[in-house]
């Protein structure tokens, strides 16, 4: 077994060396080689891939890509390997080498060519090698990165050829790092290796740390101090960054809490309704997003990338309308009895949960994540995921918009007037019922917006809202009821405190400590962070 594997690796390596020099772009990949992909188990498939790669034929790249994406099938009738794409209930077939249309086939007539993680890694490397000299910058970058991941000594020459031609500084830096890593693996001279260590240490990120830690056991003893010094330097740097990273995590958590709580800051904070159904409004917003995506998928698949943008107004309108209906139907009979709104809205939350469960089923619903929200961006030693960043931006926008509405529009003025002195406002000709309904609708609509954002990081299930209701109340109360800025500061400080505690105490204990701190804080300031002070009125 082991010898066979060794031999196989040998063959593979040989092939890669051949492939490495594009000048030798030699033989053509043929159909038999491709069809071999569909035969036998994983070891045979690995060999077949090696054969294909060895040809250096550019047409192999899309085949490997299809294999990696799970789109490569064997046609059962004749054993031919085809690229298949789902077309309705059947599959549209294409010839792998020439891209010719081969008609359609039912799912039962095809056999998917399976791969596992090991093969997937190898394909990634192979594609990387074959596209390292591509003219497309993005392809080249990902090729360089996959070369770096495996850092196979056999790619050394190829890498040097590519480096000589490379002009893009980012790709160049990745390639240099890969080169240095390979140098460490080969039996280069001490001097070369030392230089390589310097290069790697100079990169100073986590990948470099990985390389150096691995190298610590393999390099000659003479070089170990250098490696250790490099590791220490990187660690020092990372430690500094980790503070910033924790801060970033905290701000991100804070932005999620802010989004979840800000609708409550209106229905509860401004109107005084202890709105236990707030979480369900968030949940409804998430389901609106799901429905919007379903509709788009059916009627305008091209717009899927912008589904969230469409879902934002849709969710706001829908949950806003539900909010208005709730206000008109239930809440308006309960003004002046805030604690009874707690009971009614709790009942309402049960009904809404069960209603969603009956309509959409109890299981999680999938919400697609648009391309622009996936992946992460690195700022120095900071890794920030795009979805978190967008949620932060979204939270800030919602907050700013809400401030505008409350402070700069006639409706906002009326809202504040009504909540401060209902009778006086009514006497001045403000239609208080209308304003009440609008205020509650606004709060609910904003909760719906939070739901849209939460689809990107959490479950879309009937229980979604339950997970946020208590945190939301904590945020609003901690910040000070009736004060949006309090909610903002409250959310951010709870988020940041949480994230700084988590590494030391773990997630649960950290959260318990936060809760206890909030309880103690309320003892110190019984009206929250931003309490309104004023002359005492009658008891």
């Amino acid at each position, binding site marked *: 077994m082991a010898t066979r594997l060794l031999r196989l690796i040998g063959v593979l390596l040989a092939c890669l060396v051949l492939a490495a020099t594009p000048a030798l772009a030699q033989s053509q990949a043929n159909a038999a080689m491709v069809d071999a992909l569909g035969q036998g188990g994983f070891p045979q498939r690995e060999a077949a891939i090696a054969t294909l790669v060895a040809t250096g034929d550019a047409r192999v790249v899309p085949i490997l890509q299809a294999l990696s994406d799970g789109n490569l099938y064997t046609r059962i009738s004749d054993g031919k390997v085809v690229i298949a794409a789902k077309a309705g209930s059947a599959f549209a077939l294409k010839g792998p080498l020439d891209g010719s249309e081969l008609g359609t086939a039912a799912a039962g007539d095809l056999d998917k060519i399976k791969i596992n993680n090991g093969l997937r890694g190898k394909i990634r490397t192979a594609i990387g090698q074959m596209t390292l000299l591509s003219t497309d910058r993005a392809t080249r970058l990902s090729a360089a990165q996959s070369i770096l991941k495996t850092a196979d000594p056999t790619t050394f020459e190829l890498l040097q050829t590519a480096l000589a031609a490379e002009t893009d500084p980012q790709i160049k830096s990745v390639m240099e790092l890969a080169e240095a890593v390979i140098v460490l693996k080969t039996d280069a001279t001490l001097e070369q290796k030392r230089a390589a260590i310097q290069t790697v240490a100079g990169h100073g990120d986590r990948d470099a740390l990985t390389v150096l*830690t691995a190298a610590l056991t393999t390099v000659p003893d003479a070089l170990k101090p250098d490696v250790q010094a490099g590791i220490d330097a990187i660690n020092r740097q990372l430690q500094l960054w980790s503070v910033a990273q924790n801060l970033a995590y905290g701000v991100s958590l804070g932005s999620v809490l802010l989004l979840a709580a800000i609708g409550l800051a209106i229905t509860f904070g401004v109107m005084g309704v202890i709105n236990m159904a707030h979480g369900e409004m968030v949940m409804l917003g998430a389901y609106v997003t799901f429905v919007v995506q379903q509709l788009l998928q059916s009627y305008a698949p091209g717009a899927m990338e912008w589904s969230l943008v469409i879902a934002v107004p849709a969710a706001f309108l829908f949950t806003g309308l539900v909010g208005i209906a709730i206000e008109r139907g239930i809440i308006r009979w309960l003004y002046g009895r805030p604690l009874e709104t707690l009971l009614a809205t709790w009942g309402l939350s049960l009904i809404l949960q069960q209603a969603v469960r009956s309509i959409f089923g*109890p299981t999680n619903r999938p919400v697609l994540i648009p391309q622009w929200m996936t992946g992460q961006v690195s700022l120095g030693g900071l890794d920030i995921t795009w979805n978190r960043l967008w949620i932060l931006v979204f939270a800030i926008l919602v907050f700013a918009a809400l401030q505008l509405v409350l402070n700069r529009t006639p409706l906002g003025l009326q809202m504040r007037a009504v909540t401060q002195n209902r009778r006086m406002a009514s006497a001045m000709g403000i239609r208080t019922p209308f304003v009440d309904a609008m205020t509650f609708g606004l709060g609910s609509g904003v909760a719906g917006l939070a739901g849209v954002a939460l689809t990107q*990081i959490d*479950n*879309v299930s*009937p229980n979604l809202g339950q997970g946020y209701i208590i945190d939301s109340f904590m945020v609003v109360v901690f910040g000070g009821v009736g004060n949006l800025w309090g909610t903002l500061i409250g959310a951010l400080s709870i988020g940041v405190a949480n994230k700084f505690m988590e590494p030391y105490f773990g*997630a*649960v204990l950290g959260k318990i400590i936060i809760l206890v701190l909030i309880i103690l804080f309320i003892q110190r300031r019984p009206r929250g962070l931003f309490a309104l002070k004023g002359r005492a009125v009658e008891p």
Partner: protein
Amino acid sequence: MTGVDRIAAGLVLGAIVSVGALAPAVAADDTIKVGVLHSLSGTMAISETTLKDTMLFLIDEQNKKGGLLGKKLEPVVVDPASDWPTFAEKARELISQDHVAAVFGCWTSSSRKSVLPVFKELNSILFYPVQYEGEESEKNVIYTGAAPNQQAIPAVDYLMSEDGGSVKRWVLEATDYVYPRTTNKILEQYLLDHGVAKEDIRINYTPFGFSDWQTEVAAIKEFGSAGKKTAVVSTINGDANVPFYKELANQGIKAEDIPVVAFSVGEEELSGMDTTNLVGHLAAWNYFESVDTPENKAFIDGWHKFIGNDKRTTNDPMEAAYIGFNLWVKAVEKAGTTDTDAVLKAIVGLSVPNLTGGTATLLPNHHLTKPVLIGEVQADGQFDVVWQTKDVVPGDAWSDVLPEDKGIEADWTDPIKGCGHYDTAKQACTTAP
């Protein structure tokens, strides 16, 4: 004399008396009642509702075949609402008030632990369809899900093998409750036994429904950057999985670099996620929907027809429910009665077909023989089987990996060893029966 207070006092009495009136719902003679005890509301509804539907489907199928012992089967569905004491209450109600012949139900270990005393006291049978932590064998429970040696251990074996990537460093990421605690205890011991150093194992517990995974996923990344091949073994439960995988995808952890193998993530959980960025992450189960056998195809088709939705997935606990139900039907037929003791006597040793091929045989320790399959997540939300055991693996109630459980057996057929915790060294049962 105040009339109000008499009325109020009467209300108290009346409420109590009317409970009594509810009691004697006399079972009709021409049906056999089957209890279905799965949460339909609350946090566990997300997983358990499907099993309730599965049971209704299976009972419906059986009735179409003419029922059992010439009688129709009648499902009695109750909602224990994800509340463990309510599970016990409802179990009692099913057995005492509705006189069900057997109960199919429970998902979490806590709910099972909560109903156990009830089943023992009232001597009825519980079919438990979910993979669990082992360390238990009860006379009144038939465990149709996987024991740790039928899921966790093979998965770790696979990852340690060359095919699985020769993993040397391990993160055991778990929700803090008894199943992950025990599984991790067994796995940690197993890894240490196989030469993994203590510092190469990281164990982390998070609470139920945990949703902010930023720090933890970053920590996994950091742990994985020590230059050794690293894998994550996840016993994260239910709701916390979606945010976990979303964070994994966003922080760019690819299966080729740090694979995550999960024991609680199946087709149903994946159907709530966008899996494009999760391709290659693993799950270990005894069943996958993608397995191509005639039995499975028939089961899936029947299920789609019953539920009226051909997008609904099937999953491992459904297969466990299927096996459990078929075993029970067979045992009742063999015993000719639904009497608990007769059925328990008849059921051991019976075999029914698995949906993935081969047969499931009920062992004397009330566990099953099962094949173990490792699947990789695909972009369409299904799993591709990349590895499987050659033979079925017998379920082991007491893990051989743990030193304190070595030599412990369970055998409910043997008159002497007829207990759940028989110490072969001492040749005695170490628990009261």
